[in-house]
């Protein structure tokens, strides 16, 4: 009996623990999940210190968010009369509802942070050079989609925090010249945050944005293989004497046949020495499983320890004091609050300067940087290469400035947007009874 069980287990799951090199290679071809990976990956790619596996962590968070999100869809109602009550039900009346909601919330906050850190890592290692520029652009779109997903999800509980954060956020968006008010009108489904807004944000949050992210994620992964693996391999490649030889045309993939460049072959790692490679199954698969466990444990621990916030039900007549945007946008709110310029009778609204111009400029820089970077190919795949010191320092400086603004906005702003130090007690707001 035991033999039979073992044989059956072997038959189903051999691909995940291959018994030989041959089996390892075959696993990639035969198994649906594993066909994503190349048969072999370079040892260098497996390094913890190179990529910090941030991209994998982001993918794990995406999976956690999708699963918890779909489960939440069974319990949440996107109607202004029922939304708040359905969240209360999740907290108190649904078995494991509190845990489910908390895990979704903390995974979402973590996702924004990890995606940003992943982008920073790619920047610091100049892994956007050459053919990888397209993947970088895909990544920027993924980053924006992540922010939008977080923003649309923020409204759904329909409490004071949600309602006013979205009021502030969409007001900043409306400051864009020419198209601003129209964007706001489309987002809100009207002039006021109401049922139409909730429904639009809900559909964006559960369908369109996740679909966009998953499709782009698949493309993002495909590009990694097409570009020849992680940029960590580039220094190794450059060290060898490489003539532009004809790539082995054994595999040729393209996306709708639109791939640019002269060769449509995958730049496989077959150019590496035998000793510098490890089989993808089981080495890579096990590493990814480990990263997933770490990420999952972190979100679960946070979900057990800290509750996702929920304030009083949304009340359009009463603005909480102060009203803040979500943390990843509160740096914009800080800029908006402090960049209003007045000379004489003429006023340039802070909303335009801080809320629109600054992020648009930063975004434009992000998008254009792979094409503006003048450093040599020698700095690809290297952390903090000397040649790129100035750009790296600028990136760090801007990131720290944004982080500082976020810190001020989240922790140091109290009623009436006044500044309070962390330990200073905030004035108690008057109550009814």
């Amino acid at each position, binding site marked *: 009996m035991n033999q039979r069980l073992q044989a059956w287990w072997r038959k189903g799951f051999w691909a995940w623990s291959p018994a030989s090199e041959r089996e390892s290679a075959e696993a990639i071809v035969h198994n649906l999940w594993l066909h994503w990976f190349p048969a072999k990956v370079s040892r260098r790619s497996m390094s913890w210190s190179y990529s910090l596996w941030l991209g994998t962590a982001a993918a794990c968070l995406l999976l956690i968010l999708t699963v918890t999100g779909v489960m939440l869809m069974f319990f949440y109602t996107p109607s202004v009369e029922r939304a708040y009550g359905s969240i209360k039900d999740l907290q108190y*009346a649904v*078995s*494991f*509802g509190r845990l489910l909601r908390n895990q979704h919330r903390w995974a979402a906050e973590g996702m924004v942070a990890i995606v940003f850190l992943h982008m920073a890592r790619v920047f610091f290692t100049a892994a956007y050079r050459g053919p990888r520029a397209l993947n970088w652009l895909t990544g920027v779109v993924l980053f924006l989609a992540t922010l939008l997903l977080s923003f649309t999800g923020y409204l759904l509980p329909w409490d004071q925090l949600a309602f006013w954060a979205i009021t502030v956020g969409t007001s900043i968006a409306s400051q864009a010249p020419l198209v601003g008010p129209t964007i706001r009108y489309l987002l809100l489904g009207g002039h006021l945050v109401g049922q139409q807004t909730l429904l639009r944000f809900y559909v964006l949050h559960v369908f369109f944005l996740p679909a966009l992210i998953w499709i782009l994620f698949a493309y993002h992964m495909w590009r990694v293989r097409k570009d020849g693996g992680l940029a960590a391999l580039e220094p190794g490649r450059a060290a060898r004497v490489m003539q532009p030889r004809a790539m082995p045309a054994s595999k040729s993939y393209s996306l709708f046949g639109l791939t640019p460049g002269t060769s449509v072959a995958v730049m496989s790692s077959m150019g590496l020495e035998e000793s510098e490679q490890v089989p993808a199954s089981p080495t890579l698969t096990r590493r990814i499983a480990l990263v997933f*466990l770490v990420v999952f444990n972190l979100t679960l621990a946070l979900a057990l320890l800290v509750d996702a916030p929920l304030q009083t039900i949304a009340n359009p007549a009463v603005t909480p004091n102060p009203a803040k945007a979500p943390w990843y946008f509160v740096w914009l709110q800080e800029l908006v609050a402090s960049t209003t310029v007045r000379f004489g009778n003429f006023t340039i609204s802070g909303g335009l300067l801080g809320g629109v111009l600054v992020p648009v400029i930063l975004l434009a820089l992000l998008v254009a940087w792979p094409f503006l970077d003048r450093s040599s190919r020698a700095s690809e795949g290297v952390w903090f290469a000397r040649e790129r010191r100035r750009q790296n320092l600028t990136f760090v400086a801007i990131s720290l400035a944004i982080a500082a603004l976020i810190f001020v906005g989240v922790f140091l702003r109290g009623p009436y947007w006044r500044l309070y130090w962390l330990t200073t007690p905030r004035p108690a707001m008057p109550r009814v009874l």
Partner: protein
Amino acid sequence: MDTNRRQLLRWFGKGSVVAAFLAQIGAAARAFFPNVLYEPPSSFKLDAPLDYPQGYSFDSEHRLFVIRQADRFHVISAICTHLGCTVQWRGTEFDCPCHGSRFRPDGSVIGGPAPRPLPWFDVSLSPDGLLEVDTAEVVPAGSSLKLPAKA
């Protein structure tokens, strides 16, 4: 490390992941069984027993008949067992206006498409002296509640 100990540790590791994973699936499944229902309760209170006249009284809100005979009470459902219309009491029998089912005063079927007799519901006295009906508890025809003799 000792091979056996290593194998044991590995088994523990895999085992705990599998166990925890299965527990998660179980928790997710449990979450789908609602703990609270937004429905009218299946068990509810009616009026005080002495407020009811002798004979058959129709309660339209709860779709049932309260039948009083001297100091004995029983409750018969007014929902036709055919397709769920509300039957009417005609003095000698129940008639269903939808498809013509007819029932005797005790709920058993005289004629028409109804497949089963009208169910009798459990009736009791609540702590505050009102009739309490439990529509989730079907009792055999013939059982009734006898009011306790007042001292």
